[in-house]
């Protein structure tokens, strides 16, 4: 800018920083630093994390919040002060001082933010390296997401569940995969989130620090039931966890000997296939509300489509859900690939179960 005189070049330079504005600038600076320290050290915006990795993220959040608060107070402070101080008198039509720039100031507010941002970046890198460190004794859990439910498989224990149980203070190594579209596994209280992709395994590591039950939330839009695609993570003591595994193995072995109790096998399938996410059924403890309620279903199954037996109708309702839509429910809501997901034998068991309840 050839014609732009710097502040030093201009002869009749008015005082830009008089005593009042110097004082105000100092006050804004002090308030900014104090507010930054207070909010940075006890950040009020996050509830307590119940994972080792989550606590590391929270500390980084606090640091970033502190720095952001300093910038926030400085900008808003100078803005407010300018509004209060530099309003023109009603009849004043003169111009302000023609100041076109100040190289020192411009270098200052380019370099200082750059250094700050590199510091935040470096700290973020350190935390990231720290929270994704796999450990040898980690418990492996295979997470499967499908529209609109979660399933957890413990390969070392050969247990499948719709809730995730993990022992406290032991790293859990999650290997995740989706059956259909992209989902995302999030436990807000543990700050862990990872997308669950079809035909590809994604991994995440998490270490619970406090026993309790916390929600698992799907955070990637996955269709009509996205909002209700939820489960729970139960962090428990090592003893409780082992007991739970044992109880599940018994249930599983009972299910394996299902010839004796086809109803138990069907109930197990109903929940493990994710039917429970959308359909309410008292017998299975299911409370899903997206699809038709299934209590009392066996009484109406044979009456839905003329010429179709209850068995034929039920099978079709599972594998070709659009063939008949119950009044009040939209078409295309229910996934149409259960015929591929569930084996023929298991489909038979499911039909038997659904029609077996009186």
């Amino acid at each position: 800018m050839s014609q732009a005189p710097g502040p030093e070049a201009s002869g009749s330079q008015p005082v830009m920083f008089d005593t009042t504005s110097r004082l105000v600038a100092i006050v804004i600076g002090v308030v900014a630093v104090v507010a930054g320290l207070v909010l940075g050290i006890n950040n009020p915006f996050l509830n307590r994390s119940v994972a080792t990795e989550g606590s590391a993220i929270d500390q980084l959040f606090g640091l970033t919040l502190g720095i952001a608060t300093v910038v926030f107070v400085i900008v808003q402070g100078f803005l407010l002060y300018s509004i209060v101080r530099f309003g023109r008198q009603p009849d004043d039509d003169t111009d302000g001082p023609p100041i076109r720039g100040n190289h020192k100031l411009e270098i200052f507010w380019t370099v200082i933010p750059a250094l700050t941002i590199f510091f935040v970046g470096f700290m973020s890198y350190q935390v990231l390296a720290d929270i994704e460190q796999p450990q040898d004794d980690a418990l492996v859990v295979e997470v499967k997401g499908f529209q609109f439910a979660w399933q957890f498989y413990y390969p070392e224990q050969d247990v499948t569940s719709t809730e995730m149980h993990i022992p406290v203070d032991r790293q859990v190594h999650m290997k995740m995969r989706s059956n259909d579209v992209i989902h995302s596994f999030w436990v807000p209280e543990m700050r862990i989130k990872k997308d669950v992709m079809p035909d590809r395994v994604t991994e995440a590591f998490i270490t619970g620090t406090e026993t309790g039950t916390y929600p698992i939330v799907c955070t990637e839009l996955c269709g009509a039931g996205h909002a209700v695609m939820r489960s729970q993570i139960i962090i428990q003591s090592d003893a409780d966890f082992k007991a739970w595994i044992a109880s599940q193995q018994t249930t599983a072995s009972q299910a394996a000997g299902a010839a004796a109790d086809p109803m138990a096998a069907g109930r197990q399938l109903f929940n493990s296939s994710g039917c429970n996410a959308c359909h309410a059924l008292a017998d299975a403890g299911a409370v899903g509300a997206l699809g038709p309620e299934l209590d009392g279903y066996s009484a109406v199954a044979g009456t839905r489509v003329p010429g179709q037996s209850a068995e034929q109708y039920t099978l079709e309702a599972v594998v070709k859900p659009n063939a008949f839509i119950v009044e009040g429910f939209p078409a295309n809501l229910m996934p149409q690939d259960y015929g591929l997901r569930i084996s023929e034998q298991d489909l038979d068991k499911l039909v038997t179960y659904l029609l077996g309840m009186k």
Partner: protein
Amino acid sequence: MVDTARRGFVRHGARTWRDYFTFNTDHKVIGIQYMVMAFVFFIIGGILAMLIRAELAAPGMQFVGGKAYNQLFTIHGTLMIFFWIIPAFIGLANYVVPLQLGQEDMAFPRLNALSFWLVVPGAILMLTAFAVGGAESGWTAYPPLSLTTHTGQTLWAISLQFIGFSSIFGGLNFLVTIFNMRARGMSLSRVPLMAWAMVATSIIIVMGTPVLSGALFLLIFSRILGTNFFSSTAGGDPLMWQNLFWFYSHPAVYIMVLPGFGMISEVLPAFSRKPIFGYKLIAVSSLAIGIFGFLVWAHHMFTSGMDPLLRIPFMITSMIIAVPTGVKIFSWLATIWGGKLRFTTSLMFALAFISMFVIGGLSGVFLASVPIDIHVQDTYFVVAHLHYVLFGGSVVALYSGIYYWFPKITGRMLNERLGQVHFWLNLIGFNLTFLPQHTLGLDGMPRRVADYDPAFTGLNLVSSIGAMLLAFSTLPFLINVVVSLRRGALAGPNPWRAFGLEWTTSSPPPIHNFPTPPVVDGDPYGYGERPVPVAS
């Protein structure tokens, strides 16, 4: 003049309101066509937002659940981005930039008209999507979900192709115009910052939009021809869509905010009666944002399972964007510092822009940090962030620009009292709506859900009340525009006593803008140095 105005089916200039519905080649007519159409879509998108907030006012599903809800936010996001903010800025710039450069039109008037008229079939297709099952996989349309949904999704993609080509033609037009058509004496260092912002914006449009078009073609082929670009079992990759989509759509954020930066850089000097502080650094920082904007896209994919090591460079580049943005904020603060502020509605929106945009910028640093992003990605924290950038930033800047140039465009002043009512309702409504959403996201509320944990009821209710207020705030603005068009005080050529060539011609300008080609002897920020130029 009148004879050249009508040549075959092409018209140039508007004499009656009917001319605004023609393939008109006058940049001023096209600017108004863009702005009015965009505002109609702002209202439609706003009504969809009201339905969303009505559903979210209480937990459970009351009005719209599941699929219908997904359609609402999908079309809301798409309309607001592609049919409101981008065309509104393009429209205002279309009107103003040739005037600022002292030219009689854009470089390619017919291409300019084509740009506008491509938006119309796009808009029709986009709204038809509702009738054929709707697009319901979010404005981001991630496959495989976007491959499983209804025909509406195909219309959505074809519609965006129209918008994309419209953008590309528009961007080319601005670049050629600004680099080749300037008044005598207007060296590059005397180009108004609004025009510099359009240079940066147009570079992004021209480099980024073709990638979106390519991605949309792949999506369309996958939907109607059954190709497998996004299916891993057949050798494709769903992440490829995310990479291509964000390669355009992150820079698109700067398409939506850089013109706003330009407007603020015009408004602040005029109402502070001071030259812009640090002209060069502001112009350079726009270009820096334009270039760095292309190196940050994967920060939208930090939790996607992308290569873990690659997240680090993307984190660093994303954070670096804060530096040129900060430079602008500080330069604007230095511009008003020591000035003689005249609190017109336009200036108040500009000041609110600084205040609100800083919040959006700072929450952006949280999102750039990979570990923090792991927690807040895809939550209401992101919804809050993007609305502070795109509403608190873009829309507020746009209002500032509209209040500033309305007298030039119409020849009449907007009513200041109604303007103040609009401003305060808007500011309060906006913050009530979006400030609580930061906390909701941090506490565990995911985005794109029709139902939520009852623990989040209170803040959601506040947000919904704020949204109703925000919607209501548009009413005084509309009344103001309609009434002022007929009864507003006459503006005269230069009601703000501002520099800039657009203020040296009559309001509204004659058909070819300037009776004699203007000559420039300085940049348009000579406040306190030179007398304000008089209209010729």
